[in-house]
């Protein structure tokens, strides 16, 4: 990060930003890798050795665990990519395509854990889908003994991940489209006889791929090492590797720390391996694709598959909405047993009962999200302003750096970070958790601000400068007001990311800080669905409200003029 520095404090921002999130990751990785080789003096690990790895390999289900992680991770990534591509191919040029952002906001802003809880209720054999079609269609009076949640293959886990990641990739693709003359190219290709979808797939997708590569890797890393969704939907015996690591970290037998650290390190290796493998596969896929592109087929399997993918994406989206709706219903239900399609008795008692115990997690959630988002915003704006003043563009290496928190599995460094925090005495404080959230909020805020910032017409600033305005004046009076919309959206995104964090809150907060998400995941382990419903609904509502505010505030401002 040898970016030329602008003058004054603005020049400090890149360094500050890097310190803010690089430090916990590096320290955390060290704090996890060392115990993986047996070094943790506090509990008697004084010598480096391979014993933790031996114990890891000796675990009876370790092979299955690793294979489950790899298969669900790759399946989820490939499926979301395919669906996102299909969706964009079909949506290109349509009139409603412009409003996609608004449509997918509810699903995007809902934390993974909340969607997972909702999906769990949808697909369980005694769940909503089964209830809706029983007994009139299926003649079931008792739920069938069929495994869905916790199935060995992990398909419910993949399903939920795809439901959340597809809209994310769609948004990333739409963002990348601005850099490419997509409309013109598609028009040319259509004049040559290609269908719109075929043209998009053959001409636009290859061009935007380099820009969506990092988001794809983020999805891959997340799917391989996700913990909260795997806890709720994934197989348990044995679980995916990241969950196994978490289990061992929390085991009463302290000696399990070492194989836990080894498992977490193995998780890191898996992610690195997956990303490298994907990168190596790219040239192969590219050469095959090239042959396909120039073969000249105007309207073939690609168009058909794109249509099918589009429908599946819509169905998944509807499923996500139903998942949230199911939780909303549970929050106001009293008795709701199989096979009733709707609650038999309703009540507001769930909310009134929970109000007292909700106050703390809700205020903690709000506080953390606001703090993390605002700090991230300041840092991101500072870095962007520095970039503008120094007239230097953030390079690819810096971009990888920014993506680092999204690529390194959380389980691989958060334990080490906890040790660091305990040593410095700030563990369990709100500040520590804010910092932990900041590490993940920053990349998203930065990335969502970067494009709008750079595409802001530089002539405004130049005109203002020629009128005698100082750089700070330009920043506060010209750029910021013009970018109010994107800034608010970035805030909404950062807010949503913070609300959804699970492991960072658990580790950095030492369990003393309870948020909606940590409580929801705790309760999802089988307590009353009515209670779970209230928590899940709130998890979904809070970020959505912020998002709605972010979209309507600028509109109001301009409407009044």
């Amino acid at each position: 990060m040898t970016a030329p520095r602008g003058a004054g404090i603005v020049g400090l921002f890149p360094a500050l930003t890097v310190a803010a999130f690089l430090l916990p990751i590096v320290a955390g990785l060290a704090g996890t890798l060392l115990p993986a080789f047996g070094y943790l003096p506090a509990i008697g690990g004084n010598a480096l050795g391979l014993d933790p790895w031996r114990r890891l390999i000796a675990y009876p289900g370790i092979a299955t665990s690793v294979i489950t992680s790899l298969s669900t991770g790759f399946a989820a990534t490939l499926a979301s990519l395919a669906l996102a591509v299909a969706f964009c191919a079909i949506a290109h040029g349509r009139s409603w395509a412009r409003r996609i952002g608004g449509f997918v906001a509810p699903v995007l802003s809902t934390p993974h854990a909340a969607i997972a809880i909702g999906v769990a209720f949808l697909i369980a054999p005694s769940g909503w889908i089964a209830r809706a079609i029983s007994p009139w269609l299926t003649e079931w009076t008792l739920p069938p003994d069929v495994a869905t949640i916790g199935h060995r293959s992990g398909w419910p886990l993949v399903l939920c991940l795809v439901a959340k990641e597809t809209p994310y990739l769609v948004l990333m693709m739409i963002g990348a489209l601005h850099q490419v003359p997509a409309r013109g190219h598609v028009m040319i290709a259509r004049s040559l006889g290609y269908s719109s979808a075929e043209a998009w797939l053959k001409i636009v997708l290859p061009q935007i791929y380099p820009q969506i590569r990092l988001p794809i890797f983020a999805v891959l890393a997340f799917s391989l090492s996700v913990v909260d969704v795997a806890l709720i939907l994934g197989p348990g015996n044995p679980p995916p590797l990241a969950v196994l690591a978490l289990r061992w970290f929390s085991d009463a037998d302290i000696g399990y720390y070492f194989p836990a650290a080894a498992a977490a390190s193995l998780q890191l290796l898996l992610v690195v391996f997956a990303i490298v493998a994907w990168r190596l596969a790219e040239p192969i896929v590219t050469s095959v694709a090239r042959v396909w592109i120039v073969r000249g087929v105007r309207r073939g399997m690609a168009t058909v598959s794109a249509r099918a993918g589009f429908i599946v994406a819509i169905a998944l989206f509807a499923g996500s909405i139903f998942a949230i709706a199911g939780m909303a219903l549970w929050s106001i239900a009293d008795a709701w047993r199989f096979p009733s399609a709707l609650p038999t008795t309703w009540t507001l008692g769930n909310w009134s009962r929970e109000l007292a115990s909700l106050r703390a997690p809700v205020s903690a959630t709000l506080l953390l999200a606001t703090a993390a988002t605002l700090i991230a915003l300041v840092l991101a704006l500072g870095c962007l302003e520095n970039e503008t003043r120094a007239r230097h563009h953030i390079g690819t290496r810096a971009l990888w750096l920014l993506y680092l928190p999204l690529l390194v599995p959380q389980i691989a460094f958060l334990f080490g970070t906890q040790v660091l925090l305990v040593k410095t005495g700030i563990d369990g404080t709100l500040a520590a958790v804010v910092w932990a959230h900041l590490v993940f909020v920053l990349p998203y805020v930065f990335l969502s601000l970067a494009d709008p910032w750079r595409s802001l017409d530089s002539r405004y600033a130049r005109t203002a400068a020629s009128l005698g305005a100082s750089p700070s004046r330009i920043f506060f009076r010209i750029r910021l007001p013009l970018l109010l919309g994107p800034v608010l959206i970035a805030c909404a995104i950062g807010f949503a990311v913070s609300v959804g964090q699970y492991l960072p809150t658990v580790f950095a907060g030492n369990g003393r800080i309870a948020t909606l998400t940590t409580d929801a995941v705790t309760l999802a382990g089988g307590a009353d669905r009515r209670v779970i419903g209230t928590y899940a609904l709130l998890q979904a509502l809070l970020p959505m409200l912020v998002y709605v505010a972010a979209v309507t505030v600028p509109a109001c401002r301009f409407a009044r003029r």
Partner: protein
Amino acid sequence: MTRGRTELRFCALVLIALSFSVFAEDMPWNDIVAKARGQAVNFNAWAGDEKTNAFIAWVGTEVGQRYGIKLRQVKLRDTAEAVTRVVAEKAAGRDALGTVDLIWLNGPNFLALKAEHLLYGPFSAKLPNYRYVDTTHIRSNVVDFTIPLDGFASPWRRAQIVFVYDGARISDVPHSMAQLLAWAKRHPGRTTHPSVRNFLGATFLKQALYELAPDAQQLQEPATDANFAVQTAPLWVWYEQLRPLLWRHGEQFPDNGPAQRQLVNDGEIDMMISFSPAEAAVAQAAEQLPSSVRTVVFDGGTIGNTSFVAIPYNAAHKEGAMVVANFLLEPSTQARAQDYREMGAYTVLDVDALPHADRALFDALPRHPALPTSAELRTPLPEPHPSWMTGIAAQWERRYTK
């Protein structure tokens, strides 16, 4: 003659002075209560049961009003999380001002902490209400999994294995593990047990072990290579037949008790194991189970244990924690805890030995058709030595985790 008397008086004075100094080492209870005022106690307790959470909230209100203590429940997904926390703090050298003041635990978690000298104590004898605890009939109040407590934990609530079933769906109720297998053959997929990693799940196997082991007495001793295979052989023979007949063909298990209860409520299973004799009654009142559920206690006795509260060695608010522990042993608190409308946790106190007014509280507790009588509960079987459970759990993982 006068000299002898003076010497005698001098000796008496010295003795009295010595005895005073012995007592001066222990802080009198009133001082502890005074020091506790204003403290914020972090009570780390498993939060998977709403009723327990609500009860702890009530305790918080009461100790706030009476003793000026701010009680905070740190909600745990698993008690082991608190153990990890104390260990991490010790690893970082935090020997005072620890973030965990009081932990609700039993069994393996207690043993882990006690073995590593991570607990504060002995303290239970200091609690005035400790005299009410039944230490004669209920051995689990003093000995936890064959390890003596030595005062490092204070009892809170009792648990005993029962089976809860939906009376509307089944009429042929099994009364032993052997009968359970026969029942499962007739109703495949309609029962299960929590994952063996979970305490309740492991106890399912322990209960079966008690019934099926050739010599149950040996279970009180540590397991050895010699007798482990012999004692557990019949258990595995029985389980091998049972597992394919379980819910999801024994490939998947609910994570814990409440998850299992949800399965009964959803109609996915008809019969479940429970550690709480009042679970059926409590859950019905909260609409967590249908009103047709009943409780059965297996013939031959079932395993019972006590769960405790313990104080980590580095707790920041030890006095507050002790006051809370004492309040938990208050007869009115214990009676309220046992009320199935509140929490339905059976008391650790010797009810018959209580003063008349306190005993009346227990007599006045409401009845319910799903509540087992004390005659049905009989004397609980003591928990086996922990080495049996770790051994069985490890074997189960080896056999069934692939």
